[in-house]
């Protein structure tokens, strides 16, 4: 693919919503960052820090209270109003009444793409995630790992400029996670998409990302931006490198205090 990619600029994005009690809750506070085209950026933070919310704001499914998100075409330098985007969800969010193939083809169907092309592209994407032969199965007949590979195919079939990953492997067991992380890294590199990965796993962030944004407890702010200069392709053996350990420690130290704070907030509201 000869795509040059799309860069993302997030400027002073804040989000305040009213809780059920009516009291305003500040979820995000003046979040700013730049994401280079064709890079994988991980957003990591304690639970409840608004990282998934941030992802939905980037996707345009949620409007920020203030601030804005811009997408810039790297080739032309022009602000792209509607880059192609697709999300992979923690809960898979597959349509239970549709077969695997019909789930993957959903976005193409919505876009009015002809049936023959839909079938063609769906088949290609399913084989990319090693799910060829499962076209006529229903999601309930698949394991968690297989479901998320269908979820990944459903996003990739849209050929997104920006791929959003909302804790995509959070619901999977550790072994399945490792295998899927490697598969994801290969696919993202091959497709030339710009990817934003929300995760609570430091290991996942280091293995997949070029840049890691560490967020604070609520209200979520960017606490640090960390470059991951480890060689690719990364795998389980990457975790044995000393550079990996020092990166892990650095992120853990940043997160630890925020996690303690987040627990205090949770205890307060409980």
């Amino acid at each position, binding site marked *: 693919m000869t795509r040059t990619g799309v860069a993302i600029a997030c400027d002073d994005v804040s989000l305040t919503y009213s809780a059920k009690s009516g009291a305003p809750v500040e979820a995000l506070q003046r979040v700013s960052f730049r994401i280079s085209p064709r890079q994988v950026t991980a957003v990591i933070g304690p639970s409840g820090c608004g990282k998934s919310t941030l992802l*939905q704001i980037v*996707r345009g*499914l949620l409007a920020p209270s203030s601030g804005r998100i811009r997408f810039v075409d790297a080739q032309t330098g022009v602000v792209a109003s509607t880059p192609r*985007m*697709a*999300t992979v*969800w923690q*809960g898979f*969010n*597959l*349509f*239970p*009444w549709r077969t695997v193939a019909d789930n993957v083809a*959903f*976005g193409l*169907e*919505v*876009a009015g793409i002809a049936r023959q092309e839909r079938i063609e592209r769906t088949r290609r994407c399913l084989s990319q995630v090693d799910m060829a032969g499962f076209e006529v199965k*229903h*999601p*309930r007949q698949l394991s968690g790992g297989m479901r998320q590979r269908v979820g990944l195919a*459903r996003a990739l079939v*849209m050929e997104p400029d920006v791929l959003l990953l909302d804790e995509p492997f959070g619901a999977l067991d550790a072994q399945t996670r490792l295998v899927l992380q490697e598969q994801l890294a290969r696919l993202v590199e091959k497709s030339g998409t710009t990817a934003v990965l929300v995760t609570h796993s430091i290991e996942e962030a280091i293995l997949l990302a070029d840049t890691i944004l560490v967020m604070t407890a609520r209200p979520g702010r960017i606490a640090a931006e960390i470059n991951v200069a480890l060689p690719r392709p990364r795998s389980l053996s990457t975790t044995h490198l000393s550079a990996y350990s020092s990166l892990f420690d650095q992120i853990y130290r940043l997160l630890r205090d925020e996690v303690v704070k987040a627990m205090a907030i949770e205890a307060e509201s409980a």
Partner: protein
Amino acid sequence: MQDERPIISERVPSATSFLHKSMQKLGEPRVLGWLAVAFVLITWEAVVAGARLNPIYLPRPSQILIALTTMFRTGGLLSDLLATLARIFGGFAIALVAGTLLGIWMATSERVSAVADNFIAALYPLPKVTLIPLLIIWLGTGGPFMLAISALGAFFPIVINTVLGIRQCDPGLILAARDLGATNRQVVRMVLLPSAIPSIFAGVRLGLGVSIILVVAAEMVVGKVGLGARLYLAGQVLETEQVFAVLIVLAILGVAVTKAQDFIDVWLNQWRVS
């Protein structure tokens, strides 16, 4: 001669096990259920014949069966059955379309829901038979009246269950559809409606039952044709075996509808998330 022994000793237990097996079969719940029906029919026949009861009070099952076949062959019972079916399913079809559409509209718009809620709250608990006099004043006693009463019976359960089903839709699925570029209309058609189908079908189950009751009741009051009319007329002229014959047809209709719904229910299982 020695090698014949095992054969003999095999035959003996197989003979007893055949008897044993058929006894076991009699104890099977399914078989037992039909045996009970047969027992009741035979006892009924014997007691009525023995006691020389006047068939106006209680005809024998054999007389009822004869009445039933004659009514079908020469008495026009088939056209009565067809008229009743047309009224039930015609009205039901109207209720299904109108109820599902209103349900979708209510579930996706708070304003529409607020407007419709009070009317539904007032009309839903009202026994629909009580509307028969009013509907006759407005529509007469012909086809439009029959369709209206049938549609009214099925409408409310379908509306209410459609609203419930759509409101229970997993918000994650709506997000996923929007993320993949679906417009509001596409979300309704491709996500909300399919996800509500099991719930809509639960409404269909309830509604169809009410439609059947209402159509038969309306036919009993004002019908000239139809199973209800036939039932009422037979009662008026003390043709008791004809009364029983119509009841049998209605019971079979009920069983058929229930079985068909069970069948659809199994097919609908694909909708349920594991």
